[in-house]
């Protein structure tokens, strides 16, 4: 593996470096030795009426702009637009988030107040000014990145990046003529006058941006980034996750053992003689239903309650009593058939009696106290009453 990588680097290093140059001339270049020479030369070149020319210096030489007759009018406005945008967007964000979208009362202060918004607005302004300035300067104005510029990788560039000064007159200038330009450079004291030719890749219309390999790589990188960020954001950032996604917590779940108690059971029985708040024990437990003096159903006969009652009835009662309370449930052959709920006895019962049978049991029917909650039992009572009324409906019960 390491050998392979080493070989790759070796092979990479011995690759032919210089891209093939075409026969088409891009520009004529000339070198100068001192800052004064380059000042004079660029003044002269500009005076001769050349437009497509440029001066190359290893560092910014002050005064060259005037000598070449150029200005840099656009950097400032780009920075200004960025700054205004940053200021506006920051204010808009603060106002929208804290006043419009989700107003939150914090210390009784106004949802949006300018003084508290100033620091972040300032930072936003600076941030976008900086980004706009740098991106505007590099990309919009200097047209970078452009690695395959014909001038790069030439002897000329190696000199002007280090210790020499240079002038380039482009072949696309309308006054361009190779001999005239060479003569001009010679008369100005330039040396190493050379032609620079286009690279072959400069002449083809294809931009490397639309190369299929490049696009495929971009798509792959984008997909990978999206996947990684999706999982990071979902499982690391916004789920509460110190290493185990909170699966393990310092608490005992129901049905699980515990070494803390002598009987090794995690679940505890209530302390002897105590009653949960609001849950007094059923006072007619074990008594015959004639003893029951129970009051009316505490729940209203609303649609929700009836539906809840139907749901519980179908689960717990219908196996024996049948879906309509006629005693024809699915357990018919295994268990004795219960009487119909539509006989006179049950019809004349008070709600409390039905509740008592559900809670206490009767004959073969066991108590359902531990399986059906108190409220659900009362809901079932409502539903049984609804079943009875539907079986003994009178004419005026029918919808008109």
């Amino acid at each position, binding site marked *: 593996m390491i050998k392979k990588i080493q070989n790759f680097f070796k092979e990479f290093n011995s690759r032919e470096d210089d891209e093939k140059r075409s026969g088409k001339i891009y520009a004529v270049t000339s070198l100068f030795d001192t800052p004064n020479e380059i000042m004079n030369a660029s003044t002269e070149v500009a005076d001769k009426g050349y437009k497509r020319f440029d001066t*190359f210096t290893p560092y910014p030489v002050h005064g060259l702009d005037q000598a070449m*007759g150029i200005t840099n009018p656009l950097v400032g406005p780009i920075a200004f637009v960025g700054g205004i945008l940053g200021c506006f967007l920051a204010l808009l964000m603060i106002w929208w988030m*804290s006043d419009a979208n989700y107003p939150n009362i914090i210390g009784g202060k106004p949802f949006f107040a300018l003084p508290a918004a100033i*620091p972040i607005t300032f930072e936003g302004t600076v941030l976008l000014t900086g980004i706009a300035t740098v991106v505007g*300067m590099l990309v919009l104005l200097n047209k970078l990145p452009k690695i395959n510029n014909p001038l790069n990788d030439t002897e000329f*560039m190696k000199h002007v990046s280090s210790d020499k000064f240079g002038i380039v007159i482009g072949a696309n200038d309308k006054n361009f003529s190779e001999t005239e330009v060479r003569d001009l450079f010679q008369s100005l004291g330039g040396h190493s006058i050379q032609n620079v030719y286009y690279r072959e890749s400069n002449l083809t219309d294809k931009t490397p941006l639309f190369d299929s390999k490049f696009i495929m790589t971009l798509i792959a990188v984008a997909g990978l980034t999206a996947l990684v960020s999706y999982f990071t954001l979902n499982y690391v950032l916004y789920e509460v996750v110190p290493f185990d996604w909170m699966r393990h917590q310092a608490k005992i779940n129901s049905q699980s053992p515990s070494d803390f108690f002598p009987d090794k059971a995690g679940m505890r029985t209530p302390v002897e003689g105590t009653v949960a708040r609001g849950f007094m024990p059923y006072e007619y437990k074990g008594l015959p239903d004639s003893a029951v003096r129970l009051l009316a159903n505490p729940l209203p006969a609303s649609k929700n309650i009836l539906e809840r009652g139907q749901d519980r009835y179908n689960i717990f009662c219908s196996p024996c009593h049948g879906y309509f309370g006629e005693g024809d449930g699915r357990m018919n052959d295994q268990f004795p058939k219960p009487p119909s709920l539509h006989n006179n006895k049950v019809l004349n019962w008070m709600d409390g009696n039905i509740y008592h049978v559900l809670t206490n049991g009767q004959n073969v029917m066991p108590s359902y106290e531990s399986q059906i909650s108190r409220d659900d039992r009362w809901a079932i009572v409502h539903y049984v009453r609804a079943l009875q009324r539907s079986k003994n409906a009178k004419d005026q019960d029918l919808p008109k």
Partner: protein
Amino acid sequence: MSYDSTYTREIPLVEARSGFKEIDSVLTHPLDTKPTKGWWIAFAISFTALLIGALSLANTLYFGIGEWGNNQPVGWAFDIVNFVFWIGIGHAGTLISAILFLFRQRWRTGIARFAEAMTIFAVMTAGIFPIIHTGRPWLAGYLLPLPNQNGVWVNFASPLLWDVFAVSTYFTISFLFWGIGLVPDLAVLRDRTTNKIKKTIYSVASLGWNFSNRNWSNYERAYLILAGISTPLVLSVHSIVSFDFAVSVIPGWHTTIFPPYFVAGAIFSGFGMVSTVLIIVRKVFDLEHIVTINHLEKMNKILLATGMMVGYAYAMEFFIAWYSGNTFEQFVFINRAFGPYAWAYWIMVSCNVFFPQLFWFKKVRRSIPITMVLVILVNVGMWFERFVIVVTSLHRDFLPSSWAMYAPTITDFGLLLGSFGFFFTFLLLFLKALPLVSIAEIKAVVEGAQPSIHPHPHSSNGEHK
């Protein structure tokens, strides 16, 4: 010529009139050669410190911040002390690159790149602390106003949120500033190297920069604008950091002097750190004629000035405590100077105010060993300043029944050590990977680099190509 020629004539910024080629080779020398023994030793030390920090961090993340000494009433301690300390270190970089640039202090060229790199690494180091101090750093996403399932946004009225914006903006702008300074230098490296892999990397990183004057023209204007916006930015960042304290109602924190006081302290500590590192680096990398003794002397003068600003703030805090007639305020300051943490207070005052007074003497300013000792003391003193502000204000609050002392744990010290390791590891890698002085800028200030003739104004305007 008057009696003392060094003070009447502008001192050459680069000694011994180096040629451009020589500058290139001196500044790229550390990049072209294998690391020296000294570098490896330094790297081993700082990397060990980094690993100790990583262990402490793992300990903190796994067991939680109960591993730290923080407890009621001292709920902020080393975490916030380190955060403010490192953010402060960063401020010197921006000050040197932006404010001195605007003041046309051309001597800054020798140290600007290095100080900017320090800014970036210091802000990275500082950024660790507020995130781990939240206790559940994996939820740090909630610091940003990102849409989330709860539908709720961040609290825009909180100075802690302003901090998030200030520090992240500061990092971004410092990085851009540093980055555009690097572009031409990377192009120099691209044209110098013979190794094709390096060349590919440099070509891409330099974006194909070609030294054209039309590009330089826009570049310089952009650099000026960046310097212009960085200046208020650097002042705002430490002001906002000081709001973390000043907006609360704790005596000793709730003061209006905090923003300027913090900014002056930040610049002071940052210059201390820049000097400390630079004295070693210029020796190790043979840059004594580029980062000259004159640079160090100028930095010492700034240290003297900012040290006295900090001293003024210490005195003014006492004065206001007395003048306000607020007994809680008075108690806090008397307690600082004479209470159980008096030792920390007097370390702070002596390192930051008393010892720098030695810089009044020219001999001291130009003596490298004494400067080295004094700037290290400045670093120590400024760390203790944050310690004094954070811990002494908290350990005696309004309710005497809750008074308690603060004792850092070994994890606290490990994280402090680790923060130095983190910073210096990055710094050492930077020294071997990128030119530590801006090649293009230093060439521009060599004697004879700028033309002696002035151009006449033109009527014809060249177009941008």
